[in-house]
């Protein structure tokens, strides 16, 4: 009787061990799968946030051509989506001026803004009142150098040099960097 009890008990223990082992394996599998899916979902959320931020930057860059401070406003040669290059230089100088009302014109959200001339390829140098228009880049705001800038292509125009009656436009790129902590 004792022997029979001992054999049954040992068999039961073996089954419990087997079950515990199987449960541990299943738990590990479920945890790993859960961890993997959480990473995928959280990674997707981060990507969504970055994509939305990029989209905002691109949209804002595209909308700048409608700002009176940037737009080409000559009635003789209307161009809705053209940017006045002379105004860009004037705004760059105004933003640098401590007493200018344009100093915080774009608010705290915009931490970087630059306008680049792409074609015809200019001399690669920062634009100032001294070298304009023989330059390539207008850095209007540069509060953060680590941020990735997103932008939109624009036509950058000036009155033509021979008559002043028409516009002379080049291809440019406006890029903006937004503060990521703001919604």
């Amino acid at each position: 009787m004792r022997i029979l009890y001992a054999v049954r008990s040992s068999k039961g223990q073996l089954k419990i061990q087997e079950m515990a082992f199987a449960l541990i394996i299943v738990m590990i599998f479920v945890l790993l799968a859960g961890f993997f899916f959480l990473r995928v979902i959280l990674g997707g959320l981060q990507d969504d946030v970055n994509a939305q931020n990029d989209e905002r930057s691109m949209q804002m860059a595209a909308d700048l051509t409608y700002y009176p401070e940037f737009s080409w406003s000559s009635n003789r040669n209307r161009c809705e989506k053209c940017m006045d290059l002379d105004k860009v230089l004037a705004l760059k100088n105004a933003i640098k001026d401590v007493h200018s009302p344009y100093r915080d014109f774009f608010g705290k959200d915009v931490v970087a803004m630059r306008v680049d001339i792409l074609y015809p390829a200019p001399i690669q140098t920062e634009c100032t009142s001294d070298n304009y228009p023989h330059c390539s880049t207008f850095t209007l705001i540069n509060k953060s150098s680590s941020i990735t800038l997103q932008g939109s292509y624009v036509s950058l125009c000036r009155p033509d040099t021979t008559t002043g009656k028409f516009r002379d436009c080049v291809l440019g790129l406006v890029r903006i960097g937004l503060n990521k902590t703001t919604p």
Partner: protein
Amino acid sequence: MMLPQKKAQEEITGFVIIVVMISVLFMVFLGIMFSQNFNKSATPSKDVSSYLEAVTEVTTPCAVYGDEYATIGKLFDYCYSGKSCLSGVSACSVLNSTLLEMFNATLPFSAAHERKGFTFYLEAVSDSSQATQVVLAIAKGNCTGFQVTAASPLITVTKTLSYKFTECY
């Protein structure tokens, strides 16, 4: 004495089969998910659209009337109408060389580069039958992979023109 061992082996085999089945299903799911992402061809792009829009306003070295140098957008019309610049060069020739130079300068491409090539088409659309006639075509590089594109109509005095730019990756 062999019976418990055999039962354990069967259970392990069953467990392995279930794990293999779940893995296969997971792989199939991943395969479907990725194939849906990569099968998209010629996706419309806001970036390409803004590029195309800005390009049409760029001034060219071609003056057709007086002192006014024509923009790329105006050259589309002049090229379709068969006009020439005051310098004697045809509008289509200036348009072709200016566009090619601009695309090469601003959108570099090569087999080693992320961007493999691009295509540009300027077409005249018939008002009645909606049939299209290619006015100017520029194609460079390899355009077999993933594509982003933008197209825009241009209503001119003479005809409705349509231009389309595609970047190939």
